[in-house]
């Protein structure tokens, strides 16, 4: 409103009869009132926005247990955890060796890049990763025997051609990051619990 010169002349006209001191006092009061309105507006907006964040039941979503016995060596399965695909891959001895020989300098994303950081010690044959391409969220191919796995033997993302190796590390863009590792633990040698 104060943008209008015409309005500015009008609004305060009757007030100008008062002394100058009155005007400053009123301005201070108005400032407090406007600040209060701004604070109030923000405080009211927050609960509404926060209501769109995950609710308590979503946050408490139970963990999922995976039985490893049916997974044939050289193949992988997909399980759903918190609505996301989790790849569980039973690696062959060759694939493990291949994954362990890669040097950090060869990687696009050296973060958690060594194979030993990506599996649980003593369970080298089991690779568990979040099966979401770090580029734009597609699900890479490579679990079924007939799937293309790309030249690094891991996974191939059909959307934009990103390639992952047998440790789930990105080796060819456009994906910027390695496949994420979900929290999981071995309950026994043949059973893991994700989450």
């Amino acid at each position: 409103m104060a943008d209008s010169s015409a309005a500015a002349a009008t609004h305060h006209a009757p007030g100008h009869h008062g002394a100058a001191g009155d005007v400053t006092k009123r301005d201070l009061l108005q400032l407090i009132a406007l600040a209060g309105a701004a604070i109030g507006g923000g405080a009211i907006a927050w609960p509404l926005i926060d209501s769109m964040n995950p609710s308590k039941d979503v946050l408490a979503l139970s963990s999922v247990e995976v039985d490893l016995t049916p997974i044939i060596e050289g193949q992988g399965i997909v399980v759903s955890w918190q609505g996301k695909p989790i790849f569980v891959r039973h690696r062959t001895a060759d694939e493990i060796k291949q994954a362990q020989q890669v040097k950090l300098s060869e990687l696009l994303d050296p973060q958690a890049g060594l194979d030993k950081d990506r599996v649980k010690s003593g369970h080298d044959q089991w690779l568990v990763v979040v099966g979401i391409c770090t580029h734009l969220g597609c699900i890479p191919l490579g679990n079924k025997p007939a799937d293309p796995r790309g030249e690094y033997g891991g996974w191939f993302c059909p959307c934009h051609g990103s390639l992952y190796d047998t440790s789930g590390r990105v080796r060819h863009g456009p994906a910027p990051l390695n496949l994420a590792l979900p929290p999981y633990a071995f309950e026994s040698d043949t059973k893991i619990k994700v989450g």
Partner: protein
Amino acid sequence: MRPMRSLLAGVFAIGLLAAPSLSVPVRAEEEIQMPNMGWKFEKLFGTYDLASAQRGFQVYSNVCANCHSMALLHYRDLSGIGLEPEQIKAIAAGVTVPQGTDDQGAPKEGPATPANQFKSPFANEKAARAANNGALPPDLSLIVNAREGGPDYIYGLLTGFVEAPGGFKMQDGMYYNKMYPGHQIAMPQPLQDGSVEYTDGTSTSLDQEVRDVVTFLAWASNPEMVERKQMGVRIVLFFVFMTGITYAVKRRLWSDVH
């Protein structure tokens, strides 16, 4: 001051309009005297007595849960009565619940997790009726909100099992209760002195057990209450302050009008 008088008249009108709705809850008590227990959580800024609510959860689990579900609650919600995550995990793990299907498609069972709902004692309504002489034990998740008189009524009901007065005709399989509308209830007296054993040394008189379970049920009906009241104090004060400020601005602005 005419405007002032009109304003007061308006306020009076609101009061009158609101009056009938306020009088609604009082109607049911034609003959039944509702006890007035003065619950701490019913006070304007009152909170739940968490120790009492925890004992009440024990009463519910040991006694009420044999027939009454609380399907709107999850084990994780128990953090609201002050239980630690480890305690909640242990409580949940002691309950066996269906867990979808196994890899062959057969139904699977396993220990519950904090994310699970409270397990219901019966599979469905028909099973519940069949096991209770045709009467359906109501779900207790919202029971304090769902009854006229709220916690006082529940207290009165659980302590209201007395001998039927002479000449009162009882149907078979019904029990006399001085609080229950019609006085004939299908539920036998669920709690007596010493129905549970408290680990904290609190007396297990009927009165204490009922106070505890009512506190627990009141929390279950309104788990947000404490947070709500705390937030309310700040918000109401904020608007009162803003009313004062805007009124001062208004007075100053209008001082030259009239």
